[in-house]
């Protein structure tokens, strides 16, 4: 195994920043946090690829927008991201929950009371980690969160060590290999468990489904839709939106049924994907400042 250079921990996805965040949560007084977060959000604007990624995505979300305006919008995205990961770290370290609002509670209850498992499809918005923690505390069902592993090996190891502490409340599965995970998730859903998947990003090794978002090409993971079809369970679009300092809203939309209608499986999945992208466009359009996608999605699809 090759030894990694010492400075790699300081790269933007390096473990140093995760450790610094944990340290800050335990050392910075809460009433100083707005200044600290404002300052560090401006510092991370120096991260060129991330800044550019958000700005490119913003030109798609806000058609006809100016680069000058989008630069300041990008700051707003970074600001919200900083608050979100801070709230998540605070919960992990100090068990401090934010305030919660529930929008579409009837859909949430429908999922809770139906027999059999369910799939929650969410996006890289607000704090999906906090949402899972809230779910694990309010629901009797076990939740399995599927997420992309960290790129940096040290960061991956650090995050995994943190998740091990939460293992009793919910389980995290990393979508490194579609085939291995699919059977595991199918068994879980059939056992009545809830599987939460981020449905707005495709990572290496995951089968994609080509569609469009805000008129530009986008790759979405096909897995959640195939899983819903095979397990015959509905998909619940759930978004966790930051509404202010230590205040979040859990938005639960009407379930999407993935029904096998004919011989063409892709066509049936396409109907569900279209419903999902419609939901995504409506939520991202309203809360664009909380869509934490730092790579240009259309370039990835291309």
């Amino acid at each position, binding site marked *: 195994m090759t030894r990694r250079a010492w400075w790699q921990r300081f790269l933007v996805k390096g473990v140093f920043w995760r450790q610094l965040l944990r*340290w800050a949560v*335990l*050392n*910075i*007084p*809460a*009433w*100083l*946090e*707005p*200044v*600290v977060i*404002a*300052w560090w959000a*401006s510092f991370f604007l120096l991260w060129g690829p991330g800044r550019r990624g958000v700005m490119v995505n913003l030109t798609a979300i806000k058609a006809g927008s100016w680069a000058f305006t989008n630069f300041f919008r990008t700051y707003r995205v970074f600001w919200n991201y900083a608050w979100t990961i801070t709230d998540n770290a605070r919960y992990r370290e*100090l*068990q*401090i*929950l*934010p*305030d*919660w*609002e*529930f*929008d579409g*509670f009837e859909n949430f209850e429908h999922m809770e009371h139906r027999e059999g498992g369910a799939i929650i499809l969410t996006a890289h918005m607000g704090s999906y980690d906090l949402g899972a923690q809230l779910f694990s505390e309010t629901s009797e069902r076990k939740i399995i969160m599927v997420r992309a592993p960290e790129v940096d090996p040290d960061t991956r190891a650090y995050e995994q060590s943190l998740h091990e502490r939460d293992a009793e409340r919910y389980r995290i599965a990393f979508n490194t290999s579609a085939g291995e995970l699919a059977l595991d998730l199918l068994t879980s859903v059939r056992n009545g468990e809830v599987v939460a998947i981020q449905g707005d990003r495709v990572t290496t090794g995951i089968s994609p489904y080509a569609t469009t978002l805000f008129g530009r090409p986008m790759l979405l993971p096909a897995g959640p839709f195939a899983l819903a079809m095979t397990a015959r369970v509905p998909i619940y679009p759930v978004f966790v939106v930051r509404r*202010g*300092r*230590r*205040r979040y*809203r859990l938005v639960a939309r009407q379930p999407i049924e993935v029904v096998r209608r004919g011989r063409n499986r892709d066509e049936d999945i396409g109907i569900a994907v279209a419903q999902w992208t419609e939901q995504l466009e409506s939520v991202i359009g309203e809360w664009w400042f909380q869509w934490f996608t730092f790579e240009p999605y259309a370039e990835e699809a291309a």
Partner: protein
Amino acid sequence: MKVVRDRDEARWLPSRHHFALTKLVAMIAMKRTTHRDSSLKRIYAIERDQSTLENYSIAIWLYLTGTAYLLAVTPKVTWILVPWIAGFAVHAPCFLIGVIANRFGAVDNRKLNGISTMVLFLIASSWFATTDSPVAIVAWLFLGIVALNAIAAVVMWMLRGTAAAMERRCVA
């Protein structure tokens, strides 16, 4: 941690505030708040740093005070950078104190850093208050608010029974 469900007045619970002055304001606001019907279900966390108004007010106040002090001691040519430098300078002592406290085995140093930051601002304000420059107004304002908070702490101590009753009614 305690939570309150679907009671809007819980926003103003004194126990969701940190400083005596804001606890007192919250108590008055809570008496005036009426429950509003909404389709949204809500959960309010009972934690002393939960108030947005309090935390943003204090953060902005400290930032502006710190910026004014830096402007007073730096040459005019650097003024364009001062607002950004002040953002770091305000929380820089927390790094130093936090790292030293870590060396002695302390993990959660929020309280220590909170007290240290306020003491540093008190020392700086006491010094700037004695100068003839316009920044003395900022310094006196800082000292005035600290004094007001001390008075509010006495009032809150006298009203501790009422505050506890409000908490019981809402949290029960």
